[in-house]
């Protein structure tokens, strides 16, 4: 069962060198309140696992601009010049991961799998230094699960049982990241009573959720 906390309390749990799996796609569906709270703590040397590096003033871009990110596993940097500059200067270590591979590697960790075999990246630099496994004559790259300490996700609503639903394309990586955190913190618009979300419509069952932050409390964060 989850505990309701504030964004500041959530951010205070995150120590330097924590590995953060953060939901969102180009900042849509990003847990902005949690990100703002982490910016406020200034905690450094974070490792982030994200689909994209967003913009300088939206999504995880804010952590980059504030020099809190030491390394990242990410599929796309194209919208954020600051992370490209920090990569070129050596401040941030980047592992570029194909988006589908990234999702499966994060999901694998949440699902207790050690990794997956994917054809994506065969014949490209992505396969370098990785084990290639041939199944029925077809080559696959062995990609290990990506561990994370905290998953920070944005949902639309939670119920008091911790079940989450998302809104339109703001769902994106959030349900996958939510599976993967040793501690999963969800930022939501509101918490409704158990039973108000139809069991058929639950996207992320409450078993994955440890803490919930209600967004209106952090609107000015």
């Amino acid at each position, binding site marked *: 069962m989850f505990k309701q906390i504030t964004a500041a309390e959530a951010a205070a749990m995150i120590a330097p060198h924590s590995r953060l799996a953060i939901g969102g796609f180009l900042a849509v569906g990003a847990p902005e309140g949690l990100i703002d709270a982490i910016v406020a703590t200034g905690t450094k040397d974070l490792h982030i696992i994200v689909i994209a590096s967003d913009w300088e003033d939206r999504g995880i871009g804010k952590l980059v601009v504030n020099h809190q990110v030491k390394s990242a596993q990410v599929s796309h940097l194209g919208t954020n010049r600051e992370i490209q500059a920090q990569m070129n200067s050596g401040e941030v270590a980047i592992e570029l991961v194909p988006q589908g591979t990234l999702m499966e590697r994060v999901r694998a960790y949440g*699902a207790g799998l050690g990794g997956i075999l994917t054809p994506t990246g065969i014949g490209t630099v992505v396969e370098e230094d990785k084990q290639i496994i041939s199944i029925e004559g077809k080559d696959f790259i062995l990609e290990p699960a990506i561990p994370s300490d905290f998953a920070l996700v944005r949902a639309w609503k939670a119920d008091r049982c911790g079940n989450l639903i998302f809104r339109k394309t703001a769902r994106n990586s959030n349900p996958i990241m939510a599976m993967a955190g040793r501690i999963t913190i969800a930022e939501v618009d509101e918490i409704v009573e158990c039973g108000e979300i139809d069991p058929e419509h*639950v996207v992320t069952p*409450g*078993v994955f959720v440890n803490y919930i932050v209600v967004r209106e409390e952090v609107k000015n964060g």
Partner: protein
Amino acid sequence: MDKRAMIGARIAKELKDGDYVNLGIGLPTEAVNHIPEGVHVTFQSENGIMGTGPKPAEGMEDEDMINAGGGYITALKGASFFDSALSFAIIRGGHVDVTVLGALQVDQHGNLANWIIPGKLVPGMGGAMDLVTGAKKVIVAMEHLDKKGNSKVLKQCTLPLTAKGLLSLIVTDMAVMEVTPQGLLLREVTEGFTVEDVVRATEAELVIPSHLLDKD
């Protein structure tokens, strides 16, 4: 209370408020009837529901509402339905706090055998191997002796294993034993039995704390 109810009651005491729990079919389900007051646990059934409720009243059964044992169930408020892959992601990923399973044999290395008697009975492992591998705490609920009076708590399982070294606790009609790096620690002896009774009924080596010996 009969034997099975007693085992169920003892297991229920291991469940903590807020736990997510998966009960194997048969004996383990006895625990449901003995959850202590003030302790709220959520039950998963691996065929795809979190938040199972009690059996439906007669005539109220829904063909599409069963647990992993095939019995009719209801859903509590706040339940969720999901597919089998997500269900086992929950299990294998370590998101289930406690699983309780039956056993054919257990041993002092924390091994469990409960899915096959080669040449005789091949039900298959179903979800048991994933449950034992993934749950944070694995409790076995079983009778101490088999129908022929032989110990089911062995030095070494002779049947094919369900999982290797992953048991936490063994609860039988005679005793409660904890799997530790030092071996099987005898934690409790059921009223009506002596430590000697348990030792005699147990092929495995037991580690016996002195306060239990004093009690005899």
